């Protein structure tokens, strides 16, 4: 496909602009003006519409196709939330308005949304307080790690280590490292955290254990009470990575279990669009012991019912984002939670778990499933049998793309060889799940009969098999416009 620059025709215009009364150059110092005009594409409106429509059709999204990308929760994002986020009362609001003296009256609605959303997230998770500021899951992890550090510093604890299970999301050790901790890995047993290995790794220098539940294998951590007791016995804190919260919505409140810090991925669990690198939202919830350290600003409700931003929190870790987080994303999650309600959110987790188990059972005689027991919202299959015949997880993933299905996550978690991590989500129909099984069955049969055909996939996508090695070894990160 040609680029928009290739399609440029000198002199072509979309609309004929009126004669400018003053040129931009009249207002700028001469040394800031460019010597030659920028090389912008010259196109008519129809050229532009066709170009971007063609581009959009070459893209892959959940609005067009099934997207069982494990760990990422690529569920359908209902469109009504877009309407809420597009309300002019919100979109026309400048984020500094709340800072103007006397302008609080114009921002009451927005502040109320933030206050209410914090309360709703507290109710859903059983935590005491929330900050909405972190702008992505990993940003939430960093915020949480900094809160943990602030807590220990304030208590005079000398804590230097954070424990992560070997099934942890890669961002957990990264976030803890950036927050200044040394990361210690603990080995799983039978796919879940081994309390004995945890006990062995625990000492007075451990600041926290970062974990997710269900974990990356889609398995529920069955030793939670023991884990909570062990971690708290050395005054360490328990961090819950909320990436998999959609498996337990309405079923378990992590605050009730004993977790001290939790981040949520609103862009996963609460159906706000993601996948193009953002925008995300990773609010962080804390137990009472940690509330003083939350980032500023905080939204407060006064006795007369008005909402204000408060900054007077001397123990706060400070600012974690400009303004108040990704407000548009927060609005969508707020609308989603209110629309679904308590009953609807419970059905989310029930259907997510049902869909994953349905696929697991239908695929168990076709692919190796290393931890083949009732799973939560996702499961991990392995192509080890096919790999003996030269067809690897990567090849199967590419063959699925050819059939209009997004590939599952592959080669993660690292503790399963040739793995394919499947998360169907609660928004897919039985017909879609059946079609996925049919297509995958077909690919696996082809892997036996004609491995080369699977190794050559994809052939029907806008681009063929990309050279991932070259992409990583010879990076060209600039384009000369």
């Amino acid at each position, binding site marked *: 496909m040609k680029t928009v620059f290739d399609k440029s025709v000198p002199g072509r215009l979309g609309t004929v602009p009126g004669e400018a009364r003053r040129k931009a150059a009249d207002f700028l110092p001469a040394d800031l003006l460019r010597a030659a005009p920028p090389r912008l594409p010259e196109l008519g409106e129809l050229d532009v519409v066709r170009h971007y429509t063609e581009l959009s059709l070459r893209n892959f999204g959940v609005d067009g196709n099934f997207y069982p990308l494990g760990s990422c929760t690529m569920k359908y994002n209902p469109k009504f939330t877009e309407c809420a986020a597009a309300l002019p009362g919100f979109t026309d609001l400048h984020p500094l308005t709340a800072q103007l003296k006397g302008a609080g009256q114009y921002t009451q609605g927005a502040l109320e949304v933030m206050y209410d959303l914090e309360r709703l997230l507290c109710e859903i998770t059983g935590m005491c307080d929330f900050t909405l500021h972190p702008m992505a899951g990993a940003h939430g992890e960093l915020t949480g790690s900094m809160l943990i550090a602030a807590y220990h510093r304030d208590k005079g604890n000398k804590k230097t280590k954070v424990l992560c299970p070997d099934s942890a999301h890669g961002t957990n050790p990264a976030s803890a490292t950036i927050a200044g901790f040394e990361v210690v890995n603990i080995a799983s047993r039978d796919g879940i955290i081994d309390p004995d290995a945890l006990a062995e790794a625990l000492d007075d220098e451990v600041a926290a254990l970062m974990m997710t539940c269900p974990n990356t294998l889609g398995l529920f951590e069955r030793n939670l009470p023991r884990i909570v007791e062990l971690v708290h016995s050395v005054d360490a804190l328990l961090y819950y990575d909320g990436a998999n919260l959609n498996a337990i919505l309405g079923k378990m409140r992590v605050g009730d279990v004993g977790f001290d810090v939790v981040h949520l991925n609103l862009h996963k669990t609460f159906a706000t669009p993601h996948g193009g690198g953002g925008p995300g939202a990773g609010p962080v919830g804390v137990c009472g012991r940690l509330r003083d350290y939350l980032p500023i600003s905080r939204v407060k409700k006064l006795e007369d019912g008005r909402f204000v931003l408060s900054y007077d929190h001397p123990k706060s870790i400070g600012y974690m984002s400009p303004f108040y987080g990704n407000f548009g994303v927060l609005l969508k999650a707020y609308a989603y939670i209110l629309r679904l309600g308590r009953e609807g959110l419970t059905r989310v987790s029930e259907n997510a778990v049902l869909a994953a188990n349905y696929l697991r059972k239908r695929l168990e005689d076709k692919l190796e499933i290393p931890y083949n027991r009732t799973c939560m919202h996702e499961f991990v299959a392995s192509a080890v049998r096919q790999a003996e015949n030269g067809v690897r997880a990567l090849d199967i993933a590419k063959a699925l793309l050819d059939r209009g299905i997004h590939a599952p996550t592959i*080669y*993660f978690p*690292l503790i399963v*060889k040739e793995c394919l991590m499947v998360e169907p989500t609660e928004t897919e129909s039985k017909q879609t799940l059946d079609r996925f099984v049919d297509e995958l069955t077909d690919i696996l049969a082809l892997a036996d009969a004609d491995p080369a055909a699977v190794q050559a996939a994809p052939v029907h996508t806008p681009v063929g098999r990309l050279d*991932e*090695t070259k992409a*990583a*070894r010879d990076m060209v990160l600039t384009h000369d416009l």
Partner: protein
Amino acid sequence: MIPDDLLYTRTHEWVLVEDGTVTIGITQFAQEQLGDITYVELPEPGDVINTGEEMGTVESVKAASELYAPVTGEVIETNTELETAPELVNEAPYGEGWLIKVRPAEDIDPEELLSPAEYHELLDTQAH
């Protein structure tokens, strides 16, 4: 492919012990599991590495994996070819794809590493 003249670790490094020098690399099995290697991060000459501790990273298209020091000693040379040609680790893990040379702090006790037979056994158990 497990050469007879090397010693091994449970974390899939190999060790060649010669007069006063130890050469370290990763095994054929390790490079196979990693897939195409895109970047190798090694300690600098002069650095001291300690048995069992992290000494670098290997990144492939699939994952980034830590390298663990099989012995204690001072790094005397690193394979600078890998800066521009990390694929050497895939192509010749026991040869041109070696990682570092170390002057060990004390004599290497072969009992503390895996013999070729023991490493073979380890791979057998991991295959299932």
